């Protein structure tokens, strides 16, 4: 019997969310409470996505956390049918979309996101989708959207 050589710990797709590992840990803490948030630069007022610690426009490093809409509309969609990365193969097929969030005053933000609770055939451009928080079971969370209206 050949002895297997154990490999070192390998990172997965999920972000490092712990305060010991990231300065944007409030994003994940807010997400656990059902809030989708990002940073706004206190100096120039720009809403930044993804959350930052330094503003890429004005170099300001004082940030405020602001809420993003919990509802969006589908700008484009497809389904992952073949060729999923590790850890996702068992979930095939699943719907992936670009979800547009209306920030008001003519501004919007687009997110690349899984959309649960709908098949590819049930999807449509313009469809309303709602924030969903996924618990990864190891203390980490990430967001998806769901086609199901909140109950």
């Amino acid at each position: 019997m050949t002895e297997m050589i154990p490999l070192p710990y390998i990172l997965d797709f999920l972000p490092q969310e712990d305060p010991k590992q990231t300065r944007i840990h409030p994003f994940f803490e807010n997400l656990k409470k059902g809030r989708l948030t990002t940073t706004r630069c206190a100096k120039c007022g720009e809403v930044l996505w993804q959350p930052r610690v330094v503003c890429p426009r004005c170099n300001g490093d004082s940030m405020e956390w602001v809420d993003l809409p919990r509802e969006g509309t589908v700008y484009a969609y497809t389904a992952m049918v073949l060729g999923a990365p590790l850890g996702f193969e068992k979930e095939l097929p699943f719907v992936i979309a670009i979800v547009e969030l209306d920030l008001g005053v003519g501004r919007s933000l687009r997110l690349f996101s899984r959309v649960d609770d709908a098949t590819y055939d049930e999807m449509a451009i313009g469809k309303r989708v709602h924030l969903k928080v996924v618990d990864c079971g190891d203390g980490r969370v990430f967001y998806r959207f769901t086609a199901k209206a909140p109950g």
Partner: protein
Amino acid sequence: MAIAAVVAGGLTRWGVREATWKELVQEAGKALFDSVDNLDRNEVDALFVGAADPERFVFQAHTAPMVAEQLGIRPRTIMRTEMACASGQMAIKAAAMHIAAGMSEVALVVGVEKMNAAPLAESQTSMACVLDREWDGVQGGSAPPFFAMVAQRHMLEHGTTREQMAMVSRKNHRFSATNPYAHFQKEFTLERILSSPVVAPPLTLLDCSGITDGAAAVLLTAPERARSFTDQPAHILGFGQAVEGNNITNLGDIATWPPLEVAAREAYSKARIGPGDVDFAEVHDCFTISEIIEYEALGFCQKGQGGKFVEEGQSDIGGKVPVNTRGGLLGTGHPLGATGVGQAIEVLWQFQSKVPRSRHVAGAEIALAHNLSGAANAHAITVYGRVPR
């Protein structure tokens, strides 16, 4: 005046290869060195290795010195370039810059990727981390779903059809069928392309480039020295490059690709040509829809007319701009770091009339090579001339 000249090229057979990445490098090096009569390999004073993700595909970093070791060279300048799917073209750009700056007299570029060392899901994972892992990759997507949505928007906004997309695949596979180095040396009918397994709707398997092992090598020198190696070099006339973020959120228009338009303007301006001067082009057809958008953004046709361009045969031999006569990424496969180098070899061999007559662009003076990387956020272009101008 040309920046540098590509004087020789060497390729391995591309495909699912029963060989390690180091063996592919040796094969490409041998093909290159065998093709140049007047080269002592000790003259190679610079080495640029294009490889996208060897850390994950083959669990190996610090690959450039290993390439030098495989090839028995001791260059004074040595580095790897990484820009995912554009890594190979970046190695050529770095080599040309060193030559233009007088820092190298004879520079070797090797592009390599071994993508089939591990099971498919591993390879897909390595490719998915080209996306922003924490925000996009985490959603379980990789390149196909992104380009599927690009296709959906282009079809919606411009009336592009599934059949037009399939025509890109049919054309490029017809070319690769006569390319002995290609992964897929086989022609496909439109019906077969349209009915191949769905990867991410509307994209089917034959809308997608292959997961391929392969290597390619080119030799560069100064234009005035080029003729000591070959009667017909490919002169580099200009580069263009542009980037707009990496996260898909930050690409303004997924159906137009503004950064490619910016890169094209720069490349044409530096080479002092316009899109109408391009006699043939090697463009980044990672997916069929990509080639259609590239016709438009490179100015070969009007915005929204890319589908019509391929349907009318304008990107075929005898058309306005023959595109991907090598077979493209769709036909030859896409070993990420090797792709841009393989394109340069096609340009050289076209100028040297070394390709089969059925896909030869006779009398070509100007060629363009393009790669994109990431979610079409980054684009790179090299313009080549048969003469230095």
